[in-house]
């Protein structure tokens, strides 16, 4: 049996997906974990190649089946975005092996003031899960997405009953009520235009001067996929071995856009912060049209300087800082 991972409390305000053995360890109330579930598929550090002194070969990790419990809709959307990146041809076999081994159990949630997945169209459980549970207080409404999940359900029939009309009503009521709870409700279709118009806004300077370049905002993001490759020599019992490792990187670090000859396309925090906002809110002109933000609010709560406020920046760029942009952007 592989491990089961679920959110557990790690500090006063924070949660993390950790391996659990008992229901009592699970923090069902966790809204956002420090790192999104991308860490299971695209780990912070992993070995890609290994060298035994003579021969270089691909490092192929044996991945045991595992389950991740408690994945909210924004994180499912984040995984779907990463799937587009890592599973487009040529596929990343390291990511694919782990993705295949995982059983994903989604869980409904209620937004707080930092959530804007609705505006980013990442608020409904679409695809990317095996089972999805909607919390109807005294029971869960279970959506089953594939054969494997169905077989799992059959294996624990004693806990299940077929959804009644009342259950269906309860499901609809939950998601309708939830829909009205979001504070941020702008039209994300306009974001690329807003970012283009605001390319030279004084805001970038103001925020960038406060940026620590600490990079906290990117590992926490469900869609950030940037990495660095390093060759690391190491002592083994008999001879020196080496590995090529893939390690998370961040566009907020000063070396990210440095090139040979000592030049740097984004030498200062102002350039880098603006670039980060642009990638999150505009996306790249990418053939697979990756949504670069799913509205999870992690960057906002993880920034020690308080400058990662995507909805706030959107309001300012839209020229209506005082308005709550219900449903539209000027």
């Amino acid at each position, binding site marked *: 049996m592989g491990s089961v991972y679920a959110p557990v409390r790690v*500090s006063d*305000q924070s949660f993390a997906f950790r391996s659990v053995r008992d229901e009592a360890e699970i923090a069902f109330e966790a809204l956002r974990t420090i790192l999104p579930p991308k860490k299971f598929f695209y780990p912070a*550090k992993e070995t890609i190649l290994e060298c035994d002194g003579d021969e270089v070969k691909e490092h192929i990790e044996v991945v045991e089946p595992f389950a991740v419990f408690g994945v909210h809709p924004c994180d499912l959307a984040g995984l779907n975005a990463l799937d587009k990146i890592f599973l487009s041809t040529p596929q990343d076999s390291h990511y694919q092996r782990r993705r295949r081994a995982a059983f994903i159990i989604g869980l409904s949630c209620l937004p707080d003031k930092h959530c804007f997945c609705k505006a980013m169209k990442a608020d409904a459980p679409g695809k990317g899960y095996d089972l999805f549970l909607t919390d109807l207080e005294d029971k869960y409404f279970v959506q089953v997405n594939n054969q494997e999940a169905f077989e799992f359900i059959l294996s624990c029939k004693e806990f299940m009953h077929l959804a009644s009309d009342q259950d269906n009503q309860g499901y609809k009521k939950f998601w309708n009520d939830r829909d009205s709870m979001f504070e941020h409700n702008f039209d994300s279709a306009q974001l690329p235009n807003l970012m283009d118009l605001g390319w030279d806004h004084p805001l970038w300077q103001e925020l960038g001067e406060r940026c*620590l*370049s600490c990079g*906290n905002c990117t590992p926490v993001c469900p869609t950030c996929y940037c990495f660095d490759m390093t060759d690391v020599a190491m*002592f083994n019992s008999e001879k020196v071995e*080496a590995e090529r490792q893939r390690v998370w990187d961040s566009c907020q*670090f000063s070396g990210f856009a440095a090139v040979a000859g000592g030049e740097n396309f984004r030498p200062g925090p102002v350039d880098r912060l603006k670039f980060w906002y642009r990638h999150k809110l505009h996306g790249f002109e990418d053939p697979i049209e990756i949504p670069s933000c799913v509205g999870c609010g992690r960057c906002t709560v*993880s920034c020690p300087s308080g400058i990662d406020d995507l909805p706030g920046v959107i309001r300012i760029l839209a020229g209506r800082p005082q308005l709550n942009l219900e449903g539209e952007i000027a």
Partner: protein
Amino acid sequence: MQIERRLPRIAVQGLTGCAGELLVILENLGSVLPFVQVASFPFAQSKNDLSDIDIAFVEGSVSQKHDIDSIKEIRARSKWLVAVGNCAVHGCVQSSTCSRYKAKELVEAVYAKDSPIEALDAKPLSSYVNVDVELSGCPIDKNQFLAVLASLLKDHLPYIIDRPVCLECKMRENGCVLIEKNLPCLGPVTAAGCGALCPSFEAACYGCFGPCKDPQLNAMATVLSEKGYNLSDILVRLGTFGIPEQVLSNLDVKR
């Protein structure tokens, strides 16, 4: 006839420092002995030969006349020179906030007027010689040391992380003590390598690996002063492990 290949010769030398690095290296000597010959290590052995060195590890800052002679000699005799520890890399405590005082004043205060001690302003090795690899830490991390040695034995410049501690802190998924507890954590401006040790035990990083690449000190001081820390305390904290006094006295704190 087969020519016997000699093992690469390493030297481990100390200038003005606390011997912290020497201890870390000594404690890990066992795992490297099959691969190297310890030609010189005055802290650990009595017979030392500082000639024809492949890799020299040097701890401590240059703060006395004879340190200058030593470091020049070591440089001339070694293929690779590795500065180990914050004193050798940044000058650390001796050069940072202490540089508010003149070396002469310090000597007079500590020893006596007209003392024969020739103290200089403490400087990192790179102020006097070319340094091939700089490994910071107070003291250094043993895994980083082993990785540096393994790499240089392959004549490969080692990768030493220059990102801030926050990256390692996030990888460990600690609750952020700067945000959650308002502790004066210097993780955002400090070089990683320790594995975010202090924040993993709910303590603030106090910068002991020295500054990360391109540290954003204005922003760091701004954030800390907004949390209510007093500017002179912030400067002492930032300066302790290697951010030079000249840099600190020119900070532009937005408040």
